[in-house]
């Protein structure tokens, strides 16, 4: 495999290989010295056409832990503002001889377009409203850490599914592992995902019942006033996760959120900070998963 453009394109076996490899990297991250020479001499460029703090820093740290040379490229300082086409930008970067392009872009399918046109490995760090594959991988990794496996779990995904690439990648991943997926949110924010064996609930209380995992999604403030829902107040009342609702799920249910959170809008502070929340563990696992992805794409594992 050359690229990681989406979960859709991965088989169950490939996902399992990534998760197993991430396990080994997580062990390394627990060591005193966390850097390994696995990808020394390789060059990575982080191309972020959309603002990002979490994903970009997570990738950058993962890249540094693997001893790669890292180049950061963000839009305000780039030639994109001078009117250069994306294609030319990418070709220029490729001419530097980079091995990996980690890219985030507001248009869905852009990593696929780039992957077809370069020799470097392209890793999708979020494209439009399509996919965010490494997030889904780290979510799966985090769930397995807590629950042992994915098989047979009831997982509720709550919020703006329509605009969430995190939700989409999670749905594609979990549906390959026999998970009972429940999508919860207002009808205006739930797209037609019937091909992926999901159940849809507009009533949150009903959807949460007996869930093993609750994945909360960030509500983007700009959706308010555009007809998706009337107000954040009404949204929280119907689809916000508070302690009362958390109790509807299984006793040992875990709460996840890809961040950044809107406390009091989609999730209450007492839930976010509760023992059942594994939000910060997700962040740590993100490093291990991203290291595993790059390591596997480099092909070095095959030579080892």
């Amino acid at each position, binding site marked *: 495999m050359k690229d990681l453009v989406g979960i859709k394109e991965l088989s169950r076996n490939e996902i399992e290989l990534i998760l197993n490899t991430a396990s080994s990297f997580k062990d390394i991250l627990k060591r005193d010295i966390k850097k390994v020479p696995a990808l020394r001499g390789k060059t990575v460029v982080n191309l972020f056409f959309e603002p990002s703090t979490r994903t970009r820093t997570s990738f950058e740290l993962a890249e540094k832990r693997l001893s790669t040379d890292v180049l950061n490229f963000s839009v305000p300082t780039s030639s994109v503002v001078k009117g250069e*086409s994306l*294609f030319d930008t990418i070709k220029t970067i490729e001419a530097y001889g980079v091995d990996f392009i980690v890219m985030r872009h507001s248009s869905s*399918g852009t990593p*696929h377009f780039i992957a077809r046109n370069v020799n470097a490995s392209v890793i999708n760090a979020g494209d439009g409203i399509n996919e965010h594959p490494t997030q889904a991988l780290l979510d799966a990794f985090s769930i397995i850490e807590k629950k042992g496996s994915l098989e047979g779990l009831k997982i509720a995904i709550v919020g703006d599914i329509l605009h969430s690439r995190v939700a989409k990648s999670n749905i594609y991943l979990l549906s390959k592992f026999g998970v009972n997926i429940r999508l919860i949110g207002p009808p205006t924010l739930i797209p037609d995902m019937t091909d992926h064996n999901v159940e849809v609930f507009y009533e949150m209380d009903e959807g949460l019942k007996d869930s093993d995992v609750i994945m909360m999604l960030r509500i983007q403030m700009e959706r308010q006033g555009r007809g998706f829902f009337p107000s954040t107040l009404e949204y929280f009342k119907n689809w916000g996760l508070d302690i009362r609702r958390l109790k509807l799920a299984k006793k040992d249910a875990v709460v996840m959120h890809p961040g950044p959170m809107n406390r009091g809008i989609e999730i209450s502070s007492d839930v976010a900070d509760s023992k059942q929340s594994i939000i910060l563990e997700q962040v740590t696992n993100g490093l291990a998963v991203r290291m595993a992805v790059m390591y596997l794409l480099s092909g070095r594992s095959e030579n080892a």
Partner: protein
Amino acid sequence: MPDAILIKNGHIVDPSQGIDEVGDILIEDGKITEVRSQKSEVRHKEKESLRTIDAAGLYIFPGLVDMHVHLREPGFEYKETIKTGTMAAVKGGITSVCCMPNTNPVNDNKTVTEFILRKTYAEGSCYVYPIGAITKGQKGEELAEMTMMHEAGCVAFSDDGRPVTSSLIMRRALEYSRVLNVPIISHCEDMSLSEGGVMNEGRLSAQMGLRGIPYASEDAMVARDIILSELTGGRLHIAHVSTEGSVRLLRQAKERGVKVTAETCPHYFTITEDAVKGYNTNAKVNPPLRTQRDVDAIKEGLRDGTIDVIATDHAPHHRDEKLQEFDKSPSGISGFETALSLCLRLVHEGVLTMSQLVEKITFAPAKILGINAGTLKVDNYADITIVDMNREFKVESENFLSKGKNTPFDGWTLKGMPVITICKGKIYDWRS
């Protein structure tokens, strides 16, 4: 061109005269002088330079009339010019085209119309009939000078590429057009419903993370315009029908006797939204490619006469424009050089008879536009397309004569193609 041309033993299909049989056609001094069935020999005067074309086993059609094309000149000559566009049309067996007004400047006044016609006279390989804008600058606010443009040569009016959003302005346009008795061609799209959309809305758009354009965006506008046509008595022509709902609405309107006609394009009856998979910008078109259900409904609409015309919506773009993010890439398919072959599939599949098909690409559009084209009647200029129904070829967009290489049919093997086009006194033999 020789003084006389005799096309012998071809299967002549000319719905304008109800001809559908093997026969000969004699052309003298550029005009058709005789059309005869095999029973009687074509008699021709003794000419020094008689050229005989043996059309045995081939079909002879009137030159095709394509009532919806974009020639891009003036303003977007990097995409296409009148010279390259009309040449590509002739290669596709098309001898008359109607060019949409979304040029730069917009064809919303007679000066631009005159420019297009002057350019065509100097460099055009086929006949060009301009379509003027309904509103100034295609902004949907004020009516453009329709009667003056008509006098200069415009045969219909459209804000194609953009819908006329205001129902009031559309009403006025349909009312005002009655003074000329020309069609108002409507690009039916409710922009608020399709906002930000780049492909058909449905499971696949959800799956690809692309914003969708629902069928309701087209259907709602078709319904509105039918109602306005009914109200005003203005002649309405619906451009590029892509949905099952539009076909249903049109069928009902025609049953009621509303003065409405409609066209679809080869891509809407040949491929579905699946062509977009892999973020293929060459399959990005507006209205978007829909589902198999819509394809089936459009074929049925063609078969039962609900859809009168097949046009290409030839929309060439530069390679660099399609080599972009899917969202950014412009919509459109370069259609001239595959259209007739895709249409002939309808005959191969038994959806249409040859005569039904030929009517939809020759005489029907000519009649809607009130132009003297799409016929093999005696005394007309000889605009003729000779077609080999069984000749197969591979679509190679790199070899298109059009500047636009943007087609989702690249690499397809198609059966049936124009082999000779006669237009404006020239014979083009594509077999060599």
